[in-house]
């Protein structure tokens, strides 16, 4: 138990650090977007690779990002902000989960809720990554900001992986909930 608490404490710091780097590099990307060279590669330690993952869109974003840029929109803010919100949720849930481990709660309802919510967020992300670009184009066209912008729809490997991860994590959480019920029942055997 002491080991779990100790490791969870360090993992919590690591999650916090990664979340800070991730969000800070995204914020820097937006703030310094004019000053960054055309390749859009921010050459900073640690944040560099994370930054690249933010602006290198996959799925629908990969097709839509250059089109948005051509039309004069900032694709990083429009498309990247959704991803950063989802990542923030995931960081928050992981931080909360390891916080529970740190306090000695291993198989409680709160742990299971955290894991289940992570699965939900991942599954929701898939839906969002499909629907969001369509909504963006719809709003732009509705506001008559652009007529040439085409609707983009794609379901790629990244969506498939997120969906698989989401479903697997959700099922694991459900199994953990069932195991907890069995354990509670076992505790009532005198």
């Amino acid at each position, binding site marked *: 138990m002491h080991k779990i608490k100790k490791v969870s404490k360090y993992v919590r710091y690591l999650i916090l650090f990664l979340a800070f780097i991730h969000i800070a590099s995204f914020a820097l990307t937006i703030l310094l977007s004019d000053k960054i060279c055309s390749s859009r590669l921010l050459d900073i330690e640690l944040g560099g690779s994370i930054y690249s993952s933010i602006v290198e869109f996959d799925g629908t974003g990969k097709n839509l990002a250059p089109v948005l840029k051509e039309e004069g929109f900032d694709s990083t803010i429009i498309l990247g902000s959704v991803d950063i919100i989802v990542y923030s949720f995931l960081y928050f849930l992981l931080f909360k989960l390891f916080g529970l481990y740190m306090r000695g709660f291993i198989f409680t309802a709160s742990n299971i809720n955290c894991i289940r919510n992570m699965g939900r967020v991942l599954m929701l992300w898939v839906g969002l990554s499909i629907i969001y670009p369509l909504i963006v184009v719809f709003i732009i066209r509705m506001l008559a900001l652009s007529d040439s912008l085409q609707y983009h729809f794609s379901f790629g490997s990244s969506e498939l992986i997120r969906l698989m991860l989401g479903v697997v994590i959700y099922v694991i959480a459900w199994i953990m909930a069932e195991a907890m019920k069995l354990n509670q*029942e076992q505790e*009532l*055997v*005198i």
Partner: protein
Amino acid sequence: MAIIIELDVMLAKRKMKLNDLASTIGITPQNLSVLKTGKAKAIRFSTLNAICSALECTPGDILLFAED
């Protein structure tokens, strides 16, 4: 539940306290309280045997069946 636990009746008949019975049979008073209040899901034969030995009774004196 259709099964009624009458442990408190037997304890009163034998003029024994719950804590004394718990220490005699070697289970915690909390667990015995769970059994007494009818919250328990199941009872082990070993526990039943120990209770019956301590209270000098049969399982039928402790466990009763009643229609819902």
